[in-house]
């Protein structure tokens, strides 16, 4: 008796704890998930309201009105167009440049390793600081870039102050800051590619250009897609470079989602519209992520099948 009695509750405890154990293990993840979801659903809740901090008496649910109003709001369509143009332009140009630099640095030499480390420097600069730096460099009175533009015959180049060159200017800053990110990812990808296909192609006398199009690029595509996905998600949410340089101007030339949402919240205290804008941005980001991930998975499976 004395031997068996204490053993029963011990087994029960064991059964109970083995049932609870998986839940206990997932509890931290659940807490993190709740921490993420609370602000998200708060934003959804606000986006369904007419909610201006300066007019608390007017606050109330308007359900989908904030979203419906976007359909007839020309400033919203302008914001959508500017955001997408900025995102695709920066990512496209950065991919081209990043790939080009990565190809040049592909061979492992001391010099190439040194250059690749040096090229990472802009990535360590805060984008807002980079924007301020470019603001000085494009100053018409003493900016070095303005001076070069003048030497090249563009005496009246007004950079971010001119609607016709404003987008080009901020894209230039973005390229300066983020091309190294793509370069380093693609360089890692290039250096990890198997050497056999290239050796076989060389033996068969396949020209270098054809090797690039037929072997390098297809094998590098998962890396290209990964780099493009990361940059696209970041680029479509651009804020600091544009806000530091022009606050969305001149006119509405550079009014991207984040800048407009920020101004709506902090300057106009229009919480409802600001939240709705950010949720539209979230939906676009979600759609683009899915698109990229599906393609990335397809490419990976194709690569496995080929192996």
């Amino acid at each position, binding site marked *: 008796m004395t031997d068996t009695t204490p053993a029963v509750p011990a087994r029960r405890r064991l059964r109970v704890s083995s049932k609870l154990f998986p839940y206990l293990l997932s509890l931290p993840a659940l807490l993190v998930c709740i921490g993420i979801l609370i602000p998200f659903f708060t934003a959804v809740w606000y986006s369904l309201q007419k909610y201006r901090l300066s007019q608390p008496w007017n606050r109330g649910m308007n359900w989908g009105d904030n979203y419906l109003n976007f359909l007839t709001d020309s400033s919203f369509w302008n914001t959508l167009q500017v955001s997408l143009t900025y995102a695709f332009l920066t990512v496209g140009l950065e991919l081209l440049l990043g790939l080009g630099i990565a190809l040049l640095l592909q061979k492992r030499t001391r010099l190439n390793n040194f250059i690749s480390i040096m090229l990472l420097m802009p990535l360590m600069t805060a984008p807002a600081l980079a924007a301020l730096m470019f603001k000085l460099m494009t100053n018409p009175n003493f900016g070095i870039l303005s001076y070069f533009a003048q030497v090249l015959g563009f005496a009246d180049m007004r950079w971010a102050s001119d609607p016709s060159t404003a987008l080009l200017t901020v894209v230039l800053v973005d390229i300066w800051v983020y091309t190294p990110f793509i370069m380093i990812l693609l360089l890692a990808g290039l250096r990890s590619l198997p050497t056999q296909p290239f050796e076989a192609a060389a033996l068969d006398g396949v020209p270098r250009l054809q090797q690039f199009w037929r072997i390098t690029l297809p094998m590098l595509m998962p890396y290209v897609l990964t780099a493009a996905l990361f940059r696209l998600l970041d680029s479509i949410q651009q804020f600091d470079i544009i806000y530091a340089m*022009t606050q969305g101007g001149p006119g509405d030339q550079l009014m991207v989602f984040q800048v407009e949402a920020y101004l709506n919240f902090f300057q106009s205290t229009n919480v409802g519209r600001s939240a709705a804008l950010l949720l539209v941005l979230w939906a676009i980001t979600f759609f683009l992520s899915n698109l990229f991930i599906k393609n990335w998975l397809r490419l990976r499976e194709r690569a496995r099948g080929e192996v």
Partner: protein
Amino acid sequence: MYEKENDLINAYMRGQMSRRSLLRGLASMGVTAGTAAVLVNGAATRAMAADFDWKAHSGKSIKLLLNKHPYTDAMLANLDNFKELTGMEVTYDIFPEDVYFDKVTASLSSQSSEYDAFMTGAYMTWTYGPAGWIVDHNEWINDPSKTNPNYNWSDMLEGVRKSCAWNGRPGGALGSDDAKQWCIPWGYEQNNLAYNSEMLEKAGVGVPSNIDQLVEIAAKLQAAHEGVYGIGVRGSRSWATIHPGFLSGYANFGQKDLNVADDGKLSAAMNTEVSKDYHAKWVKMIQDSGAADWSTHTWYQVGTDLGAGKSAMIYDADILGYFMNGGDNAMAGKLAYAPFSANPEAAAPTPNIWIWSLAMSKFSKDLDATWYFMQWASGPEHGLFGATQMDFVNPVRQSVWDDAGFRKRLSDSYPGYVEMHDVSAPGAKIHFTPQPLFFDLTTEWAATLQKMVAKEVPVDEGLDQLAESVNAQLKDAGLG
């Protein structure tokens, strides 16, 4: 302290001698100007304590949210006197202006009790007041048990004081009888001309006295000086582009931002013929003689370009001309000032004003104790100390402007500044219509100006589009 020095200071405190005589007397005893100022201020503190129980909140602590500014520096230089006077502790956080107002909005909208009082502009209170984040300071100003008898509220310049009071009704007149005093004026800026007298002289042109002359002379100055642009005005895509020189000139033509109907409904008023004519001149002035990167110019670029000799004139905050005329600025000593009426038929200038003010947070843990700081910081003694010992310009109290020492100090170092102020002060006030969409509408106005200057839209069409958009926003917000 030596007996003779003590006697002199006490005689001054009894009003038996002027401040200048006191300082001269102290100097003859070998007391330096800086030490004399500290002694006088200490004596003033003791005199203040004689009339009012300044120690009522002794041992308590308050926290301030401050913007990096010469007004803040002046207050901090004198803060020990407040602590000695009240026995209170004061802590503070100081933020640069770029992020300052975001910090204020975040703090107030989250109903944080971290800060008891903060610096603000009058325009911001049109958001903070209706939102219920700040208090009506009349409750303290009008309570003799809480406000010292020497505070002298009516000493505040009328246009400035009234510009900080609003009844909360969209379109309601500022400073009306039922208005709430949302903030306490601290220092303010008028908008007038500051110009490089050497450049004007070399170009052989006079000081412009209306908008047509301003357009013409700015172009001549630009043509006469290589690498210099004619006129500096703000141009960034922000409400701050509209409120200084632009609106001061606009108001001088009797133009308004909004119409207020009898039933209180608001509607856009910026697309009248007179307004279109004024806009066309303003736009031409920037296109012909403004900074090449005008659309990114904030007050900072406007001021520093004048100080560096990159621009010949500015039509902006007068204190920019003040600060750029001293220190190690390249053009220090070469700048001059002029009151400016854009309308040739106007009797006097009508500068729109920016008022750095102090306000108490509704979420403060101890409003009565905080008010002790407020009344000290906005009181006549600190005002005079800041104006005569520090760079606390422009003061908001008539008594400071009447002080002979202050006027002499300004006139000696910044010739013409006092005269400019005196001419334009009677018409100086906020010329905007108070309403909660102020920042939305003025930012859009600035964006429209940018489009006009960039020739993306003609002035007529741009103003009609702006008016249409403003009316739609007012209607959507239930104001129009």
